[in-house]
């Protein structure tokens, strides 16, 4: 597909418009700093940025000019959306310099030409993957970009990708942002309602207790590193980032079967462990086909730390990580694998490792980001993990439409570093499960991608692959 630029102009902000009030600086969270370290690594070794994406496949009726206007209006009110990320005076915690945001460019909305026979139910536009390999500049407030592909001038629908430097939102935050933007469009919320810079809840524990938790977390990671993982990409390497993106949408009946299997095998509270097991087995197929020793499979699972029951915390990431480790011989038995993942999850929560992860990430915010990334990789023989995985349940469940156009489908394309170079993300939109595969182009051959696709489908719906 052509991604030639059709319109890329950014209308000027109205004369006299100034960034509204709010704090002059907004500190990055611990998990933001974790992501920032890997953004720095990708920048230095792979010439790109650590960019996440949310994709909406829309029916007719979408007006790109309305999107452009809304984004610019909201950005003027919410300075963090274009605030440079820097350490104040070069030292201390990294912060969003919202006091400098007025000098930074507004987020850009790029419209791409579409294939004549394309549509929002067909293959994804190449422009979306290309944007994931673009360079975003956190230091200069370039944090957010929209790409729009209208089909037959929008009469046959539109594909929309919102891409952001990963610190700006986590997955939940990005979905809340989209829902709030639509409410703003409908006139039920004001732009100022988006300006939620919720601080994570203040730690209830003394510094010494948090230090103890952070040490316990470090010990846990060291324990994982005793049997280090090997990713399909291998350890950190200097190659241009070239992420590709595929999505497979299961039918309604297939999705119902997958949900039922997740409930039966992993319990209604922890379906993500079923999807994680499916993901481990899909990668294992490739390791076995290559005759490659994976060491152990080590996978982090993001845990949403937002205060529960509140609508907010749109910007910055509010997550901890639960780490799982399984040996290759455990993988062939799906039920046994899930049982072990359940056991590990329970032990980690009981051992306070959710809070320990937060404490560790909070403490290392003060470290230089290069040291931070190096420390993380050193514990696992140069790897971060075996691969990435995410399960985010229902995708933007509150919205049926976006800026007046029906949402036909929607899902995430998570940020992936070229090593480990592969991520499977799963989410539900209505009654259909989306499986998004983001991978570095030279990490997986075409037949290996197909092997993984077949393995995932077979495990999800309970059929032999």
């Amino acid at each position, binding site marked *: 597909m052509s991604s030639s630029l059709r319109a890329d102009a950014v209308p000027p902000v109205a004369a006299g418009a100034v960034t509204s009030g709010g704090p002059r600086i907004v500190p990055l969270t611990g998990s933001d700093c974790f992501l920032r370290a890997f953004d720095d690594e990708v920048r230095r070794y792979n010439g790109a940025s650590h960019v996440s994406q949310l994709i909406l496949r829309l029916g007719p009726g979408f007006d790109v000019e309305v999107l452009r206007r809304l984004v610019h209006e909201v950005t003027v009110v919410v300075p963090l959306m274009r605030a440079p990320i820097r350490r104040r005076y070069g030292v201390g915690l990294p912060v969003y310099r919202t006091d400098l945001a007025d000098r930074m460019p507004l987020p850009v909305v790029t419209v791409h030409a579409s294939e004549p026979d394309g549509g929002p139910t067909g293959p994804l536009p190449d422009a979306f993957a290309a944007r994931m390999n673009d360079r975003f500049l956190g230091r200069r407030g370039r944090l957010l970009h929209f790409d729009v592909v209208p089909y037959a001038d929008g009469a046959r629908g539109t594909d929309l990708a919102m891409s952001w430097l990963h610190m700006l939102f986590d997955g939940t935050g990005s979905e809340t942002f989209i829902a709030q933007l639509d409410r703003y469009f409908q006139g039920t919320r004001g732009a100022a309602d988006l300006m939620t810079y919720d601080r994570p809840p203040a730690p209830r524990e003394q510094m010494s207790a948090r230090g103890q938790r952070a040490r316990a977390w470090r010990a846990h990671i060291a324990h994982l590193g005793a049997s280090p993982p090997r990713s399909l990409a291998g350890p950190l390497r200097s190659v241009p980032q070239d992420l590709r993106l595929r999505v497979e949408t299961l039918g309604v009946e297939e999705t119902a079967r997958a949900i039922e299997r997740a409930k039966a095998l992993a*319990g209604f509270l*922890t379906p*993500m462990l079923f999807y994680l097991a499916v993901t481990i087995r899909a990668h294992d197929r490739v390791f076995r086909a290559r005759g490659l020793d994976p060491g152990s499979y080590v996978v982090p699972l993001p845990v949403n730390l937002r205060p*529960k*029951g509140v609508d907010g915390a749109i910007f910055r990431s509010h997550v901890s990580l639960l780490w799982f480790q399984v040996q290759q011989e455990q993988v062939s038995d799906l039920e046994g694998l899930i049982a072990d993942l359940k056991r590990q999850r329970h032990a980690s*929560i009981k051992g306070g490792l959710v809070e320990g992860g937060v404490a560790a990430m909070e403490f290392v915010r003060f470290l230089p980001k290069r040291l931070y990334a190096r420390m993380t990789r050193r514990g696992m023989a140069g790897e971060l993990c075996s691969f990435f995985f995410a399960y985010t349940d229902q995708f933007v469940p509150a919205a049926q439409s976006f800026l007046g156009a029906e949402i036909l489908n929607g899902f995430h394309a998570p940020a992936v570093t070229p090593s480990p170079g592969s991520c499977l993300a799963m989410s539900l939109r209505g009654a259909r499960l989306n499986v998004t595969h983001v991978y570095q182009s030279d990490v997986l051959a075409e037949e290996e991608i197909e092997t993984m696709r077949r393995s995932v489908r077979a495990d999800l719906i309970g059929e032999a692959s």
Partner: protein
Amino acid sequence: MTEWSVQRLAQLVFEIVRDQLVAVGDDFTPQSDLIEAGLDSIGVTQLMLALEERTGVWVDEGLLTPELLSSSETLAACVHEQLAQS
């Protein structure tokens, strides 16, 4: 016989959820649905761990259903049953 009545357990569940796990408003009561109040899977595990610490009984999360989490009272009844069997 257990020293925990269903009513006392319901109050305990209610207080743990309200004070430690979920940001709830004044309308949150022992009859409120715990999932709808915002309790997620991590929260449920943390709740069960807190209950274990207080009562000495672990209720396997695999036994829990949406119906049992439909209020502090229904969950308390389940925990009480486990206590009686222990």
